[in-house]
């Protein structure tokens, strides 16, 4: 079976390179949407978790624990079937439903990233700001957040890398991502391993180069400290 391996890969690439390219594009788009809105929602959740008003922080904590404690695939199914049912007037596309599931999932992890980033700022900074007379909000905005961002950004970069891999689960619903491309090729060429190798290499190139970028960015932030 290995006799035809290399020729088969060449054939797969020759015939379907455009599909793979498009799939990689969709994967990146899906990941970007997920991390971007996941960050917005996650930051909001992190603030809720820090709220002194108990019900608010309990609600946010419950959300985070629930999302982190159930499988992503389950959440994908849940939103895929639930959203069109509950919000039929929005006429959400498959892609939209899957995006929402992914970003809801990511927001729980981002919440913890933001929370940890804020907690890592020395409490002496808060004390110094408060003794100058800054109120809690001014202290957060002017003193704590600018320093926390340095902890948060690299972690968000890593979250992006993780999400790129997790979006492969979205192919369950044929949303056009890289893994969907694999299913298409497998079905039409009756080849299982060859397209899998191709897709694997593309995933690896995406995540490897991105984590290198994140690492160098992290080094730059460190030296500017």
């Amino acid at each position, binding site marked *: 079976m290995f006799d035809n391996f290399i020729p088969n890969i060449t054939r797969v690439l020759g015939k379907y390179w455009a599909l793979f390219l498009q799939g990689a594009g969709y994967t990146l788009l899906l990941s970007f949407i997920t991390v971007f809105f996941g960050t917005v929602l996650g930051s909001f959740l992190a603030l809720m978790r820090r709220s002194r008003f108990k019900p608010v922080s309990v609600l946010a904590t419950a959300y985070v624990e629930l999302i982190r404690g159930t499988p992503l695939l389950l959440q994908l199914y849940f939103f895929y079937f639930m959203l069109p049912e509950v919000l039929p007037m929005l006429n959400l596309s498959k892609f939209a439903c899957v995006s929402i599931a992914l970003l809801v999932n990511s927001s729980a992890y981002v919440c913890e990233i933001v929370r940890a980033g804020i907690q890592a700022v020395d409490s002496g900074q808060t*004390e*110094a700001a408060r*003794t*100058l*007379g800054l109120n809690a909000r001014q202290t957060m905005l002017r003193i704590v957040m600018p320093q926390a961002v340095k902890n948060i950004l690299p972690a968000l970069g890593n979250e992006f890398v993780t999400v790129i891999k997790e979006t492969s689960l979205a192919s369950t619903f044929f949303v056009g991502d890289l893994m969907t491309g694999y299913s298409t090729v497998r079905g039409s060429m009756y080849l299982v391993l060859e397209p899998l190798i191709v897709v694997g290499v593309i995933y690896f190139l995406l995540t490897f180069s991105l984590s290198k970028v994140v690492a160098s960015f992290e080094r730059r932030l460190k030296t500017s400290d």
Partner: protein
Amino acid sequence: MIETVNLRKSFGKLEVLKGISEKIEQGEVISIIGPSGSGKSTFLRCLNLLERPTSGDVIFDGVSLTGKGVDINRHRQKMGMVFQLFNVFPHLTVLENVTLAQVLLKKKSKQAANQYALELLARVGLTDKAEEHPRRLSGGQKQRLAIVRALAMDPEVMLFDEPTSALDPEMVGEVLQVIKDLVLGGMTCVIVTHEMGFAREVSSRVLFMDDGRIEEQGSPGMIFDSPQSPRTQAFLSKVLR
């Protein structure tokens, strides 16, 4: 100026302050000495409510700070504080460290704040560092910056929490000199310190704290030369060798 009334503070089951009633008048320079764990820092941090007293009260300029509806942020502007670990803001330049609160809280123009900041920085010899970030400063320079940052708010009183304890020995002098200059300028100061020589030199009154209480107090001469309480004697015999 500042009065504490039966001030108590517990952390969980541990009672750190066991009822302190004390008055600090304008123009006084008070050193608080005592063994570690005696509650000196906690007492100081209660004065601007960085620690909320478990019971008792702090009265500043006639206002009860623990009262409901008191805008503590407004009162804190008038009480400068300097920490053992400096706590300068690493993401701001030296100049911005000093101007931030002036612009934000005193509603000064950027220009006026800069001018005042440079004036203060010149007083402690940091003019040429104004545009640097604090990471380029030595410990002594960071602490001088922290003092100037507090002074920029024109406080009525300065609270020092072991301001030289984290410094390399060769930098202690430069920081003490800045505090001395402040004292000579008439600033009311409360200083928690382990520098006995310094306490003796600058204080108008020395408080010796032990086990959450003020065990003994008096002029530097009285405390250092003829302490009455056996605990004070024991402590001083250990630190003054």
